[in-house]
């Protein structure tokens, strides 16, 4: 990772000094071990701020909405999931491909701080490093080594596009693609009866505090004004009454149908751990089943499945599974 980080800094400095771009979007290391956050670099001297480590999880693509239109050109770094999000923004005609200079960073997985915490490895932790498939947790006076996948985000373990599908320049080598089955949780829920499922989701939805982080982080949520913020008509009441929360989550997910790139950011940022991925993946699974496999974000020229049709489509609403 260090090598790539050096390349990142060098490339950023290069494109800024050559005047090819007037902004570089990357990640910067914070004070605490899990903090790697988006940074905006406009001066080649600041390229040294760039970092690439196991916590560079935020997708930089969505910042283009605010940053790109008044810039000449913006350079930015994409992991596999980020590139899908970028393509979704392309699909939605929200960004101009020509104005983005994309560095691809193949990614074999990032570390979920909550998993570190749950394993009790967080106290006194200074940093985490990776060599091959092994993580090293570095403390003041000791180190601990462990297998990396244990601490990867779930979304990374099921990642199907770790190598960016769109880029101008590749940093590093493509990594092997070896995703775990992503519909396990969905299938498990599908196997339950409808009341059990209701109780499950009722519990999840009642926790929602409507912070809208899931929406705001989502690369497919790029409306200028969100339907949930509108006051006229008022679709979503501001009270976090269960039915309003249900409306929010059902509608949010449904707006993602055929558009969700399955980057898992919504679930990552949810402070109350609502398994939003399961909602999104249920829709992905149904689309795959009913209308043929479709991966949003792979090809922005493809027509998304919910704004098109085939005269021979099944009428799946005639299915009856019984109550």
């Amino acid at each position, binding site marked *: 990772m260090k090598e790539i980080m050096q390349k990142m800094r060098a490339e950023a400095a290069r494109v800024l000094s050559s005047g090819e771009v007037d902004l570089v979007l990357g990640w910067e290391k914070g004070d605490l071990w899990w903090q790697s956050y988006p940074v905006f670099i406009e001066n080649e001297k600041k390229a040294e701020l760039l970092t690439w480590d196991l916590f560079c999880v935020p997708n930089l693509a969505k910042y283009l909405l605010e940053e790109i239109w008044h810039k000449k050109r913006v350079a930015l770094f994409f992991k596999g999931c980020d590139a899908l999000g970028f393509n979704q923004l392309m699909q939605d005609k929200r960004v101009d491909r020509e104005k983005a200079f994309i560095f691809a960073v193949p990614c074999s997985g990032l570390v979920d701080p909550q998993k570190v915490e749950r394993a009790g490895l967080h106290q006194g932790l200074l940093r985490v490093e990776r060599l091959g498939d092994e993580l090293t947790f570095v403390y003041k006076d000791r180190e601990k080594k462990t297998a990396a996948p244990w601490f990867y985000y779930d979304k990374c373990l099921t990642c199907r596009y770790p190598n960016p599908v769109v880029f101008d320049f590749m940093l590093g080598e493509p990594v092997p693609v070896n995703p775990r089955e992503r519909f396990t949780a969905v299938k498990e829920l599908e196997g339950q009866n409808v009341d059990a*499922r209701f109780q499950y989701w009722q519990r999840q939805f009642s926790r929602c505090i409507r912070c809208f982080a899931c929406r705001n982080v989502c690369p497919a949520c790029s409306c200028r004004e969100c339907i949930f913020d509108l006051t006229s008509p008022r679709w979503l009441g501001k009270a976090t009454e269960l039915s309003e929360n249900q*409306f929010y989550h059902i509608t949010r997910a*449904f707006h993602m149908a055929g558009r969700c790139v399955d980057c898992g950011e919504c679930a990552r940022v949810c402070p109350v751990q609502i398994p939003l991925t399961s909602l999104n993946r249920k829709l992905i699974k149904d689309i795959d089943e009913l209308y043929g496999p479709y991966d949003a974000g792979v090809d922005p020229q493809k027509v998304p499945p919910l704004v098109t*049709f*085939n*005269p021979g489509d099944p009428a799946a609403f005639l*299915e009856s599974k019984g109550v």
Partner: protein
Amino acid sequence: MSVAAKTQDFEPLIVAFCCNWCSYAGADLAGTGRMSYPANIRVIRVPCSSRVSPNFILRAFQRGADGVVVAGCHPGDCHYVSGNYHARRRFSMLRRFLEFVGIEAERLEVHWISASEGSRFAQVMQDITDKIRVLGPNRKLRDSR
């Protein structure tokens, strides 16, 4: 009517979104033919089944509907050429999704009813009313206020 005793005093509220050209006209024909169906059915007229956003359906459930019907022209017969094809995808997905979050799929029905199918309109409405009666009131999506 074969209705279980416990649900006898439950009068379901069923909102039917009917497209103007086929299903609404079918409902008119049911009227002209005096084909009776339960008064639990209340029709909202829309130009096309493709006008119906899932938001309206959710709102109906929030506001106390026990069942929702979306009715449009038969595939291929859409007055607006392709509206019902879009509706077919949209509501195929929505119904499965509602079921996934624990809402009985039977509460949302989609039917193709042509302008000439007055008796079918009446029959479909009778059937869904019977079904919802057995299913009982919608408590899952209803706003508690």
